[in-house]
C-alpha cells in the first residue's frame, strides 16, 4: 500500500514536470502542443543512450535541456505563420510534427524497447517505514518537488511569470501593453519543452524508452491538463498528483482495465467541473 502511494507520488511529480509546459502554452496561447510527448521521448532516448554513470546521466540532462530549447523554439517558430488561422490548425501542425518526430526516433533508435539504468548509487533500494523502496523513485519525488517549487516561483515571482499569468487571464490586455507576444510565447514554449525533455531523462529509469511511449505520456499529460484546468500551475500539480495515484491504484486494483479508471477520472471531473479543478472560466466552452 505504502509502495503504491509512493509510486503514485513519483509518477505524479514526473507528470507535473511533463504537463506544466503543455498546460501553460495551451492556457496562454490556445496552442495545444501535440508534439509534447515526442519531446519526452527524445529525453528518454537521450537518457538511454548515455545511461550507465553519473557523467552520462548529467550529460543526458544537459543535452536534453539543449534539445528542449531548440525544439521548443522551433515549434514556436513553426506555429507563427499560422497565428492568424484557427487554433485547430496549430494543433494539427504539432500533430504532424509529432508523427515525424516519432518516426525519426524509431529510425534512429530502432523499434525495440530500451531499458534505462538509474545512475550508480540510486539503482538500489532503501528502507522506508520498514518497506524496501527503490532509491531512484524517492529521488524523483524530491527532484520533482523541487522543480515544481521552481516553476511555481518563476510563474509567481518573475516578470515572465507575471506576463504568463496576465496572458492567461486576459490576452487582449497584454498585447495592448505593448509586450511582444511572440517572445513570451517562444520563451514559454522553450521552457515547457525543456521541462518535457528533462522529464524524459528523469523518467527513463521508470518507463524505459520505446516507440509509442510518446503517445502514452502525451495522453497522461492531457488528462492532467483537463483535470487541473488550463494554464494553472497549481492545477497542473494537483492534477498530476491525482493522476499519478489514480494510475498506480488503477493498475493495482484492475491490472487489465486500468485505463478505464483514468477515463473515469477524466469523465468525473468533466461532469462535475467542466473548466477543470483550477481553471478559470475558459474551460470547455472557451477553447475555440
Amino acid at each position, binding site marked *: 500500500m505504502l509502495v503504491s502511494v509512493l509510486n503514485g507520488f513519483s509518477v505524479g511529480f514526473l507528470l507535473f514536470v511533463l504537463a506544466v509546459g503543455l498546460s501553460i502554452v*495551451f492556457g496562454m496561447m*490556445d496552442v*495545444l502542443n*501535440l508534439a509534447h510527448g515526442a519531446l519526452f521521448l527524445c529525453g528518454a532516448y537521450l537518457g538511454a543512450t548515455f545511461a550507465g554513470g553519473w557523467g552520462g546521466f548529467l550529460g543526458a540532462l544537459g543535452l536534453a535541456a539543449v534539445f528542449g530549447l531548440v525544439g521548443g523554439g522551433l515549434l514556436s517558430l513553426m506555429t507563427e*505563420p*499560422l497565428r492568424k*488561422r*484557427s*487554433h*485547430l*490548425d496549430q*494543433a*494539427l*501542425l504539432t*500533430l*504532424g*510534427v*509529432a*508523427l*515525424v518526430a*516519432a*518516426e*525519426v526516433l*524509431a*529510425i534512429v533508435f530502432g523499434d525495440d524497447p530500451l531499458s534505462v539504468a538509474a545512475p550508480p548509487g540510486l539503482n538500489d533500494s532503501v528502507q522506508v517505514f520498514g518497506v524496501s523502496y527503490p532509491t531512484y523513485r524517492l529521488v524523483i519525488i524530491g527532484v520533482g518537488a523541487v522543480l515544481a517549487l521552481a516553476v511555481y516561483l518563476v510563474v509567481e515571482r518573475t516578470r515572465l511569470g507575471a506576463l504568463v499569468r496576465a496572458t492567461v487571464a486576459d490576452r487582449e490586455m497584454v498585447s495592448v501593453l505593448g509586450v511582444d507576444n511572440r517572445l513570451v510565447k517562444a520563451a514559454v514554449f522553450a521552457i515547457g519543452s525543456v521541462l518535457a525533455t528533462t522529464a524524459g531523462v528523469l523518467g527513463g529509469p521508470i518507463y524505459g524508452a520505446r516507440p*509509442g511511449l510518446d*503517445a*502514452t505520456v*502525451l*495522453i497522461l499529460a*492531457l*488528462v492532467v*491538463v*483537463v483535470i487541473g484546468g488550463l494554464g494553472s500551475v497549481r492545477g497542473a500539480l494537483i492534477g498530476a498528483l491525482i493522476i499519478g495515484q489514480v494510475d498506480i491504484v488503477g493498475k493495482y486494483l484492475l*491490472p*487489465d*482495465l*486500468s*485505463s*478505464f479508471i*483514468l*477515463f473515469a477520472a*477524466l*469523465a468525473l471531473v*468533466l*461532469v462535475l467541473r*467542466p473548466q477543470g479543478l483550477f481553471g478559470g472560466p475558459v474551460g*470547455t*466552452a472557451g*477553447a*475555440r
Partner: protein
Amino acid sequence: MTAIEAPTVPGGAPASAPRVTRARTGIIAVAVLVVLAAAPFMLAPFATTTLTRVLVFALFAVSLDLLVGVTGLPSLGHAAYLGAGAYAAGWVSINVTAEAPVPLLVGAGFGALAAALTGWVTVRSHGVFFLMLTLAIGETLQQLADTWETVTGGANGLTGIPAVRLAGTPLANAGFTYWYVLAVGVIGFALVVMVARSPFGAALRGIRDNEPRMRALGYSTARYKYAVIVMAGAVAGLAGALLVAQQRLVTPADMGFATASFALLAVIIGGAGSLWGACLGAALVIIIRDALGPSLDGHGTLVLGIVFVLVVYLLPRGAAGLRIYRRRR
C-alpha cells in the same frame, strides 16, 4: 406568397444547381463503381489487397468526415471505434460464427457502443478541446486493448481470425474478399451520404457553422452531436469488421494515434466535408503507407507525417476554412 421555383431542402443540393451536375455526378459514380468492381481482373493479387485496404480506410475516413467535415468536430480518437468494431468482429468470428453479415453487425454494433459509452464526455466541447478529449479517449481505449489480454490478445493482437463465410463458403482469395469489402463499403458510404444529405445532416451543418445559434433555434445541439458521434462510431466499427475480414488479425496499433491521425489527414486532404474527397485522401494515405512504404525502407509513415505538416501550411485558408472557401467560389 407561394413557393415559386423549386423548393430548397436544407442539406439537399441547392435548388438553383443545374440538374446536369446531378446527372454528371451519377454517371461518374457509376463509372467509378464499374472500374472498382472490375479491378481484381486487371490487378495482381498484391495490388488487389492494397486496393482492399484503401476501401477499408476510405470507409473509415468517410465516417470520420461525418464528424470533422459535416459537424465540425475534429476527432483524434475515432480509430478507437474502428478498433472496437475490429476486435468485436474478430472475436465473434473466432468464437461464434464468421458467417456474414454477423461480423459486420457485431462490428458496427460495438463501434456504436464504444462511441456511446465514451462520446458523451465530449459533447459539450468543440474545437481544440474536442480534439484533446477525443485523443485522450482514443488512447485510453487503445491501452485497454493492449492490457486486456484475455479478450484481445494484448500487444500481439487477436490472431487466427477465420475468413468471412458467405452462405457457408469461406472467402478464400483476395479477389472475393475485395468484392465483399467493396460491397459493404459502398453500403456504408451510401448510409453516410444519406445522413449528410438528410434534414438531420442539415442540422449537423448548422452546428458546424454556428452552434450557439442552433441552440437558440431550438436544437439541443449536445444531443445531435452525441447522435452523430454514435453513428460515426457505428460506421467506423463497420470499417473495423472489414479490416479483420481483410487482414485476419487486429492489433492495438490498428486503433492507435497514428491511424486516427492519418484518417484525419485523409479527410483534410480531401477537403473536410467532401465525402468523395475523403475517399481520395484515404487512397493517397494507404498508397503512401503500404505501396510506397516498402521502397521507403518501411518508413511510409515518415512521409505521411511530412505530408501532414505541408498540408497544414499549404491549404489556402487552413483545414477548417477549406469547405467554405470552395462553396463561395
